Every structure is written in structure tokens, then in C-alpha cells.
């Protein structure tokens, strides 16, 4: 195979951190190449250099043997490089066709473009209507917009940054068939993910990054997921352990919980009901945007609901606000770390005070006890191994994983009766994720009830006693997590959302 793209000794340093240190790799035409690594290993920086968003400090790139140094994404696209972003680079208020036109050089007239979009989406089994407004689309459909935007440019190299994190298992299957078809046509694919089983199923070769350096390469189909994970982390992984336990009495009961959407692009909740018992972990799966944020808001008290829908220890708490629910023992940690779970520019002590005031008695006669808050923050930092100079650091200065350990730890340390968490390990590296999951399991073991809302199915299977899925604001029936297989889960999550297999 001839090399399509070669990277030789690429180095990129930011103040205080070397994001990429002497990285070399090469990709052949038609090859599916995986880029593996923890958060902060330098994957994003590397692909940004290939896509022309960042300029390397040292080293060079060769495209088919010729020097390749894109000054901007436009140049990269002209050279045949397409990229599907992890956080979608889409414009909610614009239509599908307008979004696609924005990512193209010399976009044709809207009508001609719409026809081409229909043709490509038909060919690759990615049905998509050009006139729809992107804000109304599901996550899977939005990704199709990005993929089609790339395919219309007939790329030689397609970069995919964590493409499956928002898809149901069936949608993943179909995406893989599309990718295999592209690869068979000679398009090289650089595939970034930390879902190792997917990489084993799809990729021909893998390069593993750690701390900005290449620490190894492997052929994924001949390597176990565990071996790859240990190369990524550079240490032996600990899998969370759980003791078998018998759930106690019902502590939280939802009956026909319905609520309107909170904003134009939100999802209304429809007739959600379940019982939660002490000592158990209920996992709630589903593709993003199917009511997860709304369910968390309804449980935490950010959104109050009509009477008779939420019962906590036999008391109707639908009208109570977050502070009152916290006082009772119903705690929540939302998904967005910066700006929702924590105030970015406040110190850890101040952030500890914000949710801990009532239960940790940090407030007396209306006055705040900062010494006690500082002790509380220090306890969280110590017990959850949060890497930070101290409780005086601002929340913003912590890395994602460390801040996540802090915000989860802050709730766990308050001895909740019921803890609701949304995406507890989103964007967190493997060892921190394992620690957070272990803390949730320990909490359940001590007799609390835990609800874990997540899009990571592996995580849900690891921690849950029972599993349910959100789809279009409805919750499926809950089922014991043990023994559920991927196909059943996929059905609970709403199947394929109208995707079909590639036609040619």
C-alpha cells in the first residue's frame, strides 16, 4: 500500500504543556487507522494540525510524498482532508443544506446542493432531508449532516473524532458499514475513539498516544482491549468491584412524570415512572437529547413539577426547590461541569459551600462558616484524589477529570439518601472514571440509592443493578442489567432512528 499521509516528528507545545512531542505516523489509502489515548494525550491537537487549525512547532507532514502544510481548514479541505467533529460544528438555526454549504468550497446553488445531498445520503444509507432545521434533528441525524458534508468533498482522508459517543448500537453498526464502504473505495480514515471494542472491530492499525508521545502501535484485531487500555494508561487497570446486595425499601417513586420542554430545542418528559429502592443503582441510558437533562432537572428540583409525580420517602416533593430537596437527602450532580455543577471562577471552597451548606452545616444563623467549608473541600480533595494545589484553586483551573471527581465527591461526601448523576465520567480518563464508578458503587453499598444517567453503555452495564432507556422523553420499562445484550439495549433506546444500510 502507498502512504497517503505521513507525519514526521510533529511537535506542538502550549505554555506549560507539550501537547505533541515528536509524533510520527503514516496512513495508507483505504486504511482505517485508530488514534488512541486518554484525555489530554494529544489526539485532538494532532488532528487539528492535520486539519489546519493548529500549526506545528516542529516536524513536517507529507501528503502523497509532497509537503503538506495547510494554513487553514480551507486548504486542508482542498487537499482532500475532511473532518467530523466530536462536538458537532453545526449551526442549530440553519437548515441542513445551509450547514453543508458552509463547510464547502465553491458550494453550488442551494437547489443543486439539495439534490446532491439527497443523492449522497441515498448512496451511503444516511437518509437526510436538506430543508430541515438542524436544531430539530436527533444527535444521530446531526452526525449524518457532518458526514455528508465531508463526503460531498470526496475526501481522500476522513478524520472522525469520537463519532459513536452519541449513537445507539444499531446506528453504530450502520456507521461502520458506511465507513467500511468508504475504505473499500480507497478513502483513508483516521478514527479517534476510546471505545476499544469498536476499534478492534473496525480499524486496520492503531497508534497509541500518551502524554503527547507515541507509546506504541498495534494491529487492533490481534490485540485485546485490555492490552490497549493498559498501553493508553501506562498502568494496570482496576475494574470497579461490587458486592452482591439485596435492595431495601422504596425511597424514590416517580408516577407519570410529565413536563414540557424547557426550551425550543429541549425534549418534554412523557409519563415517566419507576421505583427506586435503597442500595440499588438504576442506570438510565439513551442517546443525548432524549430527555436526560430534563429528567435530571425534574429530580434535582431545578424544574418543579405538578403534584403527585415525584415521591421521596412517601412525601410529594414535586413543588420543592433544590435546596429543600437537598435538605431531605435527594442530591444531584448535573452533566455540565463548568457552569452547572460548579461555578468556573469560584474556588473549590466556595463551590463546596454552594451545595454543601445545608447538609454539612456550613451555614449558621445565616452566616457562612468558611473554615468548615474549607475543611469540607479538603476532605473531598483528599478522599477523591483530586489533583489540585489546594481548595483555593478555581474550578476552571482543574482538568476535566479532576473537577469531575470533585463535583461527584462533593455530593457523595454529603451522605445522600438518593444521588442522581448525569454523565458522571464524560470526558474523564479511564483511571479517574474507574474511581468515580467505584465511589458510586460504594455509596449504594452503604444503603443509598443511586441513579446514573449516561450515554456510555459499558459504564451503565458496569455499575447498574437495573437498566432503563430514555427515548423521545419516554422511559422504557426497567429491566435487570445482568444478562441484557446489546441488541435488547438498542431496541430500548429506540432502534435505528430511520437509518439504513449503505445501498452500494
Amino acid at each position, binding site marked *: 500500500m502507498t502512504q497517503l499521509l505521513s507525519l514526521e516528528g510533529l511537535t506542538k507545545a*502550549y505554555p506549560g504543556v507539550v501537547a505533541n512531542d515528536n509524533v510520527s505516523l503514516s496512513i495508507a489509502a483505504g486504511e482505517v487507522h485508530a488514534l488512541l489515548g486518554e484525555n489530554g494525550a494529544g489526539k485532538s*491537537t494532532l488532528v*487539528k494540525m492535520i486539519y*489546519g*487549525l*493548529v500549526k506545528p512547532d516542529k516536524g513536517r507532514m507529507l501528503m502523497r510524498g509532497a509537503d503538506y502544510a495547510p494554513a*487553514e*481548514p*480551507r486548504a486542508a*479541505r482542498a487537499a482532500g482532508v475532511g473532518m467530523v*467533529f466530536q462536538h*458537532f*460544528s*453545526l*449551526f*442549530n*438555526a*440553519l437548515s441542513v443544506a*445551509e450547514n453543508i*454549504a*458552509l*463547510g464547502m468550497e465553491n*458550494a453550488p446553488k442551494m437547489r443543486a446542493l439539495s439534490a446532491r445531498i439527497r443523492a449522497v445520503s441515498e448512496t451511503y444509507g444516511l437518509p437526510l432531508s436538506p430543508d430541515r432545521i438542524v436544531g430539530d434533528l436527533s444527535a444521530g441525524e446531526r452526525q449524518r449532516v457532518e458526514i455528508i458534508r465531508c463526503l460531498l468533498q470526496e475526501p481522500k482522508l476522513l478524520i472522525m473524532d469520537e463519532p459513536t459517543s452519541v449513537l445507539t448500537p444499531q446506528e453504530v453498526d450502520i456507521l461502520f458499514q458506511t465507513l467500511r464502504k468508504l475504505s473499500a473505495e480507497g478513502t483513508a480514515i483516521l478514527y479517534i475513539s476510546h471505545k476499544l471494542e469498536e476499534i478492534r472491530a473496525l480499524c486496520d492499525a492503531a497508534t497509541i498516544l500518551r502524554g503527547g508521545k507515541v507509546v506504541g502501535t498495534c494491529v487492533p484485531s490481534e490485540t485485546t482491549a485490555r492490552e490497549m487500555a493498559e498501553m493508553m494508561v501506562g498502568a494496570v487497570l482496576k475494574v470497579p468491584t461490587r458486592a452482591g446486595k439485596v435492595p431495601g425499601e422504596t425511597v424514590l417513586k416517580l408516577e407519570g412524570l410529565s413536563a414540557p420542554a424547557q426550551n*425550543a430545542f429541549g425534549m418534554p418528559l412523557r409519563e415517566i415512572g419507576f421505583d427506586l429502592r435503597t442500595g440499588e443503582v438504576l442506570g438510565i441510558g439513551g442517546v443525548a437529547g432524549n430527555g436526560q437533562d430534563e429528567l435530571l432537572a425534574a429530580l434535582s428540583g431545578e424544574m418543579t413539577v405538578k403534584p403527585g409525580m415525584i415521591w421521596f420517602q412517601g412525601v410529594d416533593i414535586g413543588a420543592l426547590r433544590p435546596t429543600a430537596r437537598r435538605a431531605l437527602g435527594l442530591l444531584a450532580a448535573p452533566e455540565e461541569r463548568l457552569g452547572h455543577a460548579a461555578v468556573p471562577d469560584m474556588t473549590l471552597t466556595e463551590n463546596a459551600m454552594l451545595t454543601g451548606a445545608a447538609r454539612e452545616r456550613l451555614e449558621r444563623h445565616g452566616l457562612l462558616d468558611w473554615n468548615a467549608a474549607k475543611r469540607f473541600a479538603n476532605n473531598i480533595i483528599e478522599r477523591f484524589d483530586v489533583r489540585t494545589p489546594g481548595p483555593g484553586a478555581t474550578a476552571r483551573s482543574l482538568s476535566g477529570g479532576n473537577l469531575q471527581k470533585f463535583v461527584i465527591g462533593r455530593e457523595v461526601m454529603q451522605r445522600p439518601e438518593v444521588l442522581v448523576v448525569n454523565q458522571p465520567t464524560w470526558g474523564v480518563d479511564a483511571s479517574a472514571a474507574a474511581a468515580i464508578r467505584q465511589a458510586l458503587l460504594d455509596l449504594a453499598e452503604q444503603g443509598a440509592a443511586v441513579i446514573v444517567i449516561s450515554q456510555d453503555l459499558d459504564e451503565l452495564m458496569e455499575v447498574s443493578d437495573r437498566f432503563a432507556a430514555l427515548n423521545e422523553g419516554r422511559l422504557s420499562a426497567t429491566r435487570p442489567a445482568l444478562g441484557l445484550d446489546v441488541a435488547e439495549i438498542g431496541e430500548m433506546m429506540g432502534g435505528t432512528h430511520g437509518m439504513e444500510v449503505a445501498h452500494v
Partner: protein
Amino acid sequence: MDLSAINPVLFIAGFLVAATPLIFAAIGELVVERTGVLNLGVEGMMIAGAICGFAVAVETGSPLAGFAAAAIGGAVISLLFAFLTQVMLANQVASGLALTLFGLGLSALLGQSYVGIKPPRLGDVDFGPLADIPVIGPVLLSHDLMLYAALALVIAVWVVLRFTRLGLILRAVGENHDAAHALGYKVVRIRTAAIMFGGACAGLGGAYISLIRVPQWTEGMTAGVGWIALALVVFASWKPLRLLIGAYLFGGLVQLQLNLQAVGVAIPVEYLAMSPYVITIVVLVILSADRTAAPGSLGRNFHASS
């Protein structure tokens, strides 16, 4: 009181003139806001344009040179706002308010020697025999060039935003600046250009007041039109044609209350004077029931991190 003393032909011709400064200022601000920038300095840019236009028109004797100078003056002073918000990443609300105060002060200083002078008059466009058509002639075809330019500008902005690639890019930058940056569009450059366009339009609006509507120079003569323009953009849901309707509604009400004062209606003058502001806002609030039209990145500063 005798309402028949109000001449409908003069009334309509008058309100077209009253609405024009507002149209200029608002359409510029609409473009600025569509790119995601909230510039509250419209009033300051208008008054700066009013004095620049007035001074240059008086010195050169050419009203059109005055308008050109007003556009340049408005654009230059808006660069101050662009520098603060796009380069220094200062808060947009505070910077806009500062720009208004700065413009009011600067114009008062520049205008000291121009108080009490009459500027050269910009003649009406000659439509030939068409201007003699009864009613339509005096109402629609007996105005100065800038009034038609304002109309043409609104239509041009509507066409550009809706049908061209440039407009699509402008809207994209305002909708999600991170995504636009990821696709390789120069967010800061596009926004700076839009801010300057907004400044030039506000300057033209200001000069229309000092050269045509009032024709003279007095301190603070824009009298809150810039603020009405800001409100108009929001309540018009960032749509150019709806903005035009709002501007004519406001202009009509201003003209009507002036006429009512003239014929001596038994309502205190203060109520009449405030009525255009109150009624315009009430009507536009009702029209703007759909709140989803705001550009997604409006008022948020953009900083390209790596």
C-alpha cells in the same frame, strides 16, 4: 380641535422622513447582531455621524460629502468598540454604553462652533413628470436621495442575508462562533467588518437628522433614536422587512403626535411626546412572540483557544 387640519399627504410624506434615521441605525445594528455582537453604542455612533456629517457639509457646501463623512465617522468610532470587544475581549454591554457616552461627549466638543448654522440642503430627487401624479407624487416621489437609499439598504440587507453566501457566513458566525471557527471562518475579522458597517449606517442615520430632518446642530439631537433602533432590532426578531414595518410605525406615530399637538388636542404634550415610544414597543413586543430568532452567539465574546 379640528382633525381635518391634518393634511394626509403631508402627514405620510412627513413620517417617511421621520422613520429614515431609525431605518439607517436599525438596519446596521441588525447586521451587527446577526453576526453575534451586541453593540449598545448606536446612539453614540449616530450623534458622532450627525456632527461629522454636519461639519463636513457646512465646510464643503456639499450635503453628499457630509453623508460620506458621517458614514466614515460612524465606522471609525465603531472601531473603538470593535477593538475593545473583539481584541481585548471586553464586555460588550459595558463597551457599548461607554461608546454612547463617548460619542455624546465627543460630538458636543466638535460641534461647539456649529451651533446656529444652517447646513446646505440636499435637494429632492427629480422624478420628472412622475412627480406630478396626484397623491403618489407628493407622498412617495418628492424626497431626497438618502430616504430612498435607506429603503434600498434594507432590501439589500434582506437579499444578502437570505440569498447569498456572504449572508450565510454572517448568520453562521452569529449562530455558533465556535463552529464557524472550526470550519475556518475568520470570526473576529467578519465581526469587525460588521461592526464597522453598523457604525457607518448609524452615522448616516445621525447625519439624516442633522442635515435633513431638523437641519441644524444641537447637542444630543439624536434624542434616543439609537435606543429605539436597538429595541426595534430585537422586536423585529432580527428580520429586515419586519424592521422596516416597525420603523414606519414609529415614524408615523411621531408625525401623528406632532400633528395632534399642532391642532391642539386636549392631551398633555408629555403624553403625546412619549406615545410613539410606548406604542411602538407594545406593538413590537406582541409581534415578537417567537423568541427563538435570536442569534445563538449574541453578546458572547469569541476567543480562539488553540
